[in-house]
């Protein structure tokens, strides 16, 4: 049944959290009364409880409420809710106990102006927890699951000044967070196999999941997540550490709700993953060990909260074990155990908090005799402790008895062992409950310094509610509504009918006798408690899993130290590592697709065609010239060799034949060489000399050279293989080129197909590209100007000012004297380049050349001026050359043209001929949007390239010694 009102409880509590957070504002914080605020905020979980409780009759009839919101349809990601009786049971516990805890926290933090933070965290936690138990999608569940981990961290570390709190919080986050990662992996496996992430799909595909080959993997991962969250041995160590949280948080998170998340998850997944041998053994063993370890360790604690923490661990072990059984009685025991434990344990925690709050200590060696000064707290505590001890007529008795019934129904091989373990654990629990009450409230005060008085009513009423419920639930006569609800919840977890009755006495059965045995044994342990505790401290005092945890953390630290050894802080080793890793990755993962090219046959080269010979020759030139950049010792020569390689590339383009590309390649190659030379000239002479020294191959040690050669060679080999496989398997029929060829003239008015693609079909690409090019120019300008200011050498400027007497026109770049024979052509070249550029743009549509070539041609002429006349003179003679303005104008013109074209043709940067049909236009020339776009490209490129030349040619950065 789809029902969006399910979101209401989440939203209401979320709003309350927001309201609490608002009180962090200084102006509001001054007027904050935390007690009054908590009363008001408690209305939110209370409302949620009522809203949820109203659905109990419907879920009892087996109705499942769902709601789904498609979040990312392409990835099939949904947010979803799924509420059946199992979810509702947990949700009610979360909101109901949450209400009490919020009220209690208001008293606990009375007068603390900073406690809005606690309330905000607590309510946010409530949202996460409620979301977790009502999630209808494994990913939704995971998000809320992580939310509870993070908020638990914040709550445990609430007292940020305390080292223990921070340590405990980190440990809890480390363990539960690690479990969360495993859980995510497990849930992804599950949803992949089940074919959907929603619980509806997953819960109904149990057979598919159980017979899947990856069943052990997903079971292990999911169980790992649940075990860490629910503090199962040996991950239980985080729970006692989390006791450094303020007591309201401990009562809520670490007894009633968060630690039950793992229980909920496993119970939820039981219909999907359960009923197998693996499931049985995994949960029985870990649950059983946890039960015993928790019960055993709890007895030796001196801190009230630690004692409760270990008994919680023990109880969680019991619940986990119960989920592992595939008999209906186990699920009856499970739901009763969950409710009983949530009630008595939250009450006991809150009582411990009251004791701590009123006396200032939780150490049972200092407490005692409090029953006289704190009578109400004493009664409430005793009631809850009796339930924990499993004594009739309380709900806890029922829980223990149903547990024992389950065990008598087990296969006989394990039943005996588990039965007596359960009896022993029950006895230990009873002893601990006795310890808790006796040492705190009975006897005589052990520490006279403690001045205690009764807590305010609102404080002891909070634990009183669940404590009294423990009694009422079991002794209430008549037809029991809650029994029906519990049965329905158990049925949802078990997948088949479960009978639940809350009748206390069934007659003289085996489990009743076992119950009696547990009680008697517990009384004996309680009476001998000091002797047993002394013995416990003597035996194995040193070993604990905390050591293992500390060792693991230290190991991680050491591993990270080792890993950062690779961080040498120098560029070349990083490059080596990255390149080598790339090679390994490509070969490792791509070998199968690359292998097919290996039986290389020597190509039957047809030397008949002269094109082939020319191509071969050009390839040889490219590779050879590139190789020369390595061999040549002087940097200037290497730059020239690179220029030669670029020109040889142009030859290859011509042979393709690709005249447009060849033209661009030639002009860009020249521009690149100019820029490289300018940069070279800009380097201070001393550095240049040093650079020259390290450029020579023979200066490298054999080892470092070998490393470079191996890395470079490996890259080359891999690239060869990739290229070969790409070329051999490429389609010989293009999917798009025929369309371009057929429509170029009609749609863009260009007979140059490449030009049509650049300025029309893929015009947006080009627009972005010129923007990038423009930004590169401006970026260089900013970089170099910034550096020039920061590391500028004032000496240079002074020298320049001294030279500023009109003679500088005879000095070219680098302060070299240029002759008139060089200067004269420069005057001619610039206007010539402008004309050339104009024709490029006008006729680029039907001939090689475009706006880009035009821009580069003009900038090359400008570069010549810089070389011949020097920086200052060029700036003076060419005042119109405003590089940044050109870039801006170019980009704006491109956008404007695109917009106009969009208006006229309906397509951004589409082609529209303004002069169509005009008789007096020169033939082949049209003023069209494409032409304007070419102008825009030219302006941007000219501006940017001029910026580059200008910045690199600027004398400030150059050392003139």
């Amino acid at each position, binding site marked *: 049944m789809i029902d969006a009102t399910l979101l209401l409880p989440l939203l209401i509590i979320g709003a309350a959290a927001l309201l609490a957070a608002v009180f962090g504002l200084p102006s509001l914080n001054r007027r904050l009364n935390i007690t009054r605020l908590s009363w008001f905020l408690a209305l939110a979980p209370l409302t949620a409880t009522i809203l949820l409780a109203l659905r109990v009759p419907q879920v009892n009839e087996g109705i499942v409420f769902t709601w789904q919101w498609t979040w990312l349809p392409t990835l099939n990601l949904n947010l979803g809710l799924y509420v059946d009786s199992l979810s509702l049971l947990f949700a009610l516990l979360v909101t109901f106990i949450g209400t009490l805890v919020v009220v209690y926290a208001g008293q606990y933090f009375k007068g603390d102006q900073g406690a809005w933070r606690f309330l905000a965290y607590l309510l946010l936690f409530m949202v996460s927890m409620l979301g977790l138990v009502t999630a209808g999608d494994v990913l939704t569940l995971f998000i809320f699951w992580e939310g509870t981990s993070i908020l638990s961290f914040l709550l445990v570390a609430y007292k940020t000044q305390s080292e223990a709190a921070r340590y405990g919080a980190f440990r809890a986050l480390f363990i539960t967070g690690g479990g969360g990662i495993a859980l995510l992996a497990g849930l992804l496996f599950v949803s992949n196999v089940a074919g959907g992430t929603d619980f509806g799909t997953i819960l109904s595909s149990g057979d598919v999941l159980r017979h899947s080959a990856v069943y052990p993997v997903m079971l292990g991962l999911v169980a790992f997540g649940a075990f860490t969250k629910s503090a199962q041995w040996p991950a239980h160590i985080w729970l006692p550490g989390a006791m450094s949280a303020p007591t309201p948080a401990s009562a809520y998170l670490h007894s009633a709700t968060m630690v039950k998340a793992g229980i909920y998850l496993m119970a939820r997944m039981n219909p999907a993953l359960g009923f197998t041998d693996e499931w049985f053994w995994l949960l029985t063993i870990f649950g059983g060990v946890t039960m015993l370890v928790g019960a055993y360790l709890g007895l030796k604690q001196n801190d009230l909260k630690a004692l409760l923490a270990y008994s919680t661990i023990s109880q969680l072990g019991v619940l986990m074990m119960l989920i592992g059984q595939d008999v209906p009685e186990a699920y009856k025991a499970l739901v009763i155990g969950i409710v009983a434990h949530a009630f008595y344990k939250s009450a006991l925690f809150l009582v411990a908090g009251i004791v701590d709050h009123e006396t200032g200590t939780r150490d049972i060696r200092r407490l005692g005799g409090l029953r006289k000064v704190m009578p109400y707290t004493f009664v409430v505590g005793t009631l809850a402790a009796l339930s924990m001890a499993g004594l009739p007529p309380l709900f806890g008795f029922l829980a223990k008895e149903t547990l024992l019934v389950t065990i008598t129904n087990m296969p006989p091989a394990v039943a005996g062992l588990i039965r007596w373990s359960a009896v022993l654990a029950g006895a230990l629990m009873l002893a601990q409950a006795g310890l808790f009450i006796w040492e705190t409230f009975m006897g005589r005060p052990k520490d006279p310094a403690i001045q205690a008085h009764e807590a305010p009513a609102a404080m002891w009423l909070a634990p009183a509610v669940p404590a009294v419920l423990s009694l009422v639930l079991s002794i209430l006569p008549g037809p029991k509504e809650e029994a029906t609800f519990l049965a329905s919840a158990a049925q949802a977890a078990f997948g088949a009918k479960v009978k639940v009755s809350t009748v206390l006495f069934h007659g003289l059965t085996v489990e009743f006798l076992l119950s009696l045995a547990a009680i008697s044994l517990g009384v004996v342990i309680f009476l001998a408690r000091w002797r047993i505790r002394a013995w416990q401290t003597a035996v194995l005092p040193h070993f604990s899993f905390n050591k293992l945890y500390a060792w693991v953390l230290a190991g991680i630290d050491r591993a990270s130290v080792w890993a950062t050894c690779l961080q040498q802080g120098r560029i070349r080793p990083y490059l080596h590592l990255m390149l080598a890793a790339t090679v390994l990755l490509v070969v490792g993962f791509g070998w199968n697709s690359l292998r097919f090219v290996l039986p290389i046959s020597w190509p039957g080269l047809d030397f008949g065609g002269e094109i082939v010979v020319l191509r071969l020759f050009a390839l040889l030139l490219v590779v050879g010239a590139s190789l020369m950049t390595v061999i040549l010792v002087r940097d200037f020569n290497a730059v020239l060799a690179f220029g030669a390689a*670029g020109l040889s*590339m142009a030859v290859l383009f011509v042979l393709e034949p690709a005249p447009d590309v060849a033209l661009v390649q030639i002009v860009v190659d020249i521009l690149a060489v100019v820029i490289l030379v300018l940069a070279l000239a800009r380097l201070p002479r001393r550095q240049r000399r040093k650079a020259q020294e390290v450029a020579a191959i023979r200066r490298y040690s054999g080892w470092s050279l070998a490393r470079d050669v191996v890395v470079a060679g490996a890259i080359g080999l891999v690239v060869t293989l990739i290229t070969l496989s790409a070329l051999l398997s490429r389609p010989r029929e*293009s999917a798009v080129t025929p369309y371009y060829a057929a429509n170029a003239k009609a749609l863009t008015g260009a007979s140059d197909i490449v030009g049509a693609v650049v300025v029309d079909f893929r015009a947006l690409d080009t627009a972005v590209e010129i923007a990038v090019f423009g930004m590169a120019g401006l970026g260089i300008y900013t970089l170099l100007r910034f550096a020039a200011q920061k590391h500028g050498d004032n000496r240079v400027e002074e020298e320049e000012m001294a030279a500023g007497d009109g003679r500088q026109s005879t000095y070219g770049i680098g302060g070299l004297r240029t002759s008139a024979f060089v200067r004269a052509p420069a005057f001619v070249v610039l206007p010539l380049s402008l004309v050339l550029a104009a024709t490029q743009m006008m006729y680029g549509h039907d001939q090689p050349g475009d706006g880009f070539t035009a821009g580069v041609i003009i900038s090359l002429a400008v570069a010549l001026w810089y070389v011949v006349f020097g920086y200052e003179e060029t700036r003076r003679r060419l005042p119109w050359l405003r590089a940044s303005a050109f870039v801006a104008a170019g980009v704006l013109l491109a956008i404007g043209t695109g917009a106009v074209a969009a208006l006229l043709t309906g397509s951004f940067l589409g082609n529209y001929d303004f002069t169509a049909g005009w008789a007096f236009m020169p033939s082949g020339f049209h003023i069209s949007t494409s032409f304007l776009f070419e102008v825009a490209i030219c302006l941007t490129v000219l501006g940017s390239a001029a910026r580059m030349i200008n910045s690199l040619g600027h004398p400030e950065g150059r050392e003139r010694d």
Partner: protein
Amino acid sequence: MELLTAVSVGLLFAIGVFQMLRRNVIRSVIGLMILANAVNLFLLSTGAYDGVAAAYTTSSGARSDALPQALILTAIVISMGGTAFVLAMLYIISARYHTADLDEVNGLKN
């Protein structure tokens, strides 16, 4: 021809990477530009058609593939801008460390 092209691209890559690994700033920029050339050569060779005529609607005979050519055109421009920017950055770095030797640029460590 494919094998020879592939070997050439591989060789250019090897040379480019080797140059990038030099200590000399200028050489490493040259290495970057050689890599750009290698990629352009690769793009060129991926054309679907072996043409004998340029890609014009007016030309007759088998036309070369226009698509990789347009891509290369863009690639040339972008790599030019990118390389110039890298050059400026390397210049700044060497100005800050007062060296053009990349092995003496070790500020990442501290």
